[in-house]
């Protein structure tokens, strides 16, 4: 079953310069993962340790977060701290408050997707503590306005043609 969703893939919404930067960041992240795996094969007393790699990944993660937040706010008016409902074209749905943005390569690395991380809503609609996240490229996104009305987010007119 496929739903009528918007193609929101990062490589479609990013400009050429942003895409280049995104690829560079993902490559750096891959390099760190590979180096960490190599490091884990060394004797224990020579290993740099998990926290060393975690600090490096967090630094790249914050750059990814800034880039993703910039693009999503410009193209989709999706901003940090919003409460959103994401409905993917495969039927998966998630409701969360967005606290962190990201992008990744999915499905044998040939598709790009956005990653939203944040916290879930409780059954009564209040903001909960349980972490939640969702990755998507084709999806319909609704945001909760402060008056409680759910409003669909649509692509800006210039989406995908940013120089």
């Amino acid at each position, binding site marked *: 079953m496929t739903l009528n969703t918007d193609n929101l893939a990062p490589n479609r919404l990013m400009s050429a310069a942003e895409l280049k930067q995104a690829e560079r960041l993902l490559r750096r992240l891959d390099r760190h993962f590979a180096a960490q795996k190599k490091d884990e094969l060394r004797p224990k007393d020579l290993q740099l340790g998990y926290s060393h790699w975690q600090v490096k990944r967090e630094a790249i993660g914050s750059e990814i977060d800034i880039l993703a937040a910039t693009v999503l706010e410009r193209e989709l008016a999706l*901003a*940090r*701290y919003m409460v959103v409902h994401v409905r993917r074209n495969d039927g998966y749905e998630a409701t969360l*408050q967005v*606290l962190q943005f990201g992008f990744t390569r999915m499905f044998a690395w040939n598709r790009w997707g956005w990653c939203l991380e944040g916290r879930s809503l409780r059954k009564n609609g209040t903001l909960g503590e349980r972490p939640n996240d969702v990755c998507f490229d084709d999806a319909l996104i609704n945001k909760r306005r*402060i*008056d*409680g009305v759910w409003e669909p987010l649509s692509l800006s007119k210039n989406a995908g043609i940013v120089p």
Partner: protein
Amino acid sequence: MNIAPDSLPYGAAPAILLDCAQQLHEMDGRPFTFDDFCVALGASRSESEPVIEQLIVDGFLYPGDSADATYICSSRMGQLALAKISHGLPRDEATRLLNAVIEKSEAINADPEKYPYAVTCLAVFGSFLTEKEVLGDLDIGVTLSLRECRREKFGLTSLKRGMSSYAKTLAALRLRKPAKISIHEMDEVIRLETPYRVIFGEMPSLSSQ
């Protein structure tokens, strides 16, 4: 404090504003940033900005002392956090309910078999004693005492049964309208140092409580 379900205080849905107020109130007076406020409200910075400005104007928040922009909740935020979302209680209906509670107290005192605890004092307090035409709810302070004839029967071993009889009497006074009638222990009313008016029985002396 009472917020009408169909109102939009500061442009926000009452449930969303109350959720925000409860999260901020839980910070126990610690300073928080504008981003913390956005997280609690569940809205972007641009949507949150007019709301925080209005809350400051109305005295729910005030800017912190530190150089970095922080805010601190005032005691009014606690009131907002405890606010109820309802249309309120018109004074006429509150007066009718108060008379019904007095009648119920008389009925409880006349039935020692069903209610081992007797109502010795009822006092009304809160918004009923103001000039408001629409109240939040009807706040009633109550003192119950175990009847002499039932004291021996209960004894110390049936404390649990005694507690359930106590709760049963309080529930009866609520007239199955928990959203409209709030029953409080008289001790609690005295501790609040809020004005009250005795409407049934006599105020027990503090030494006898």
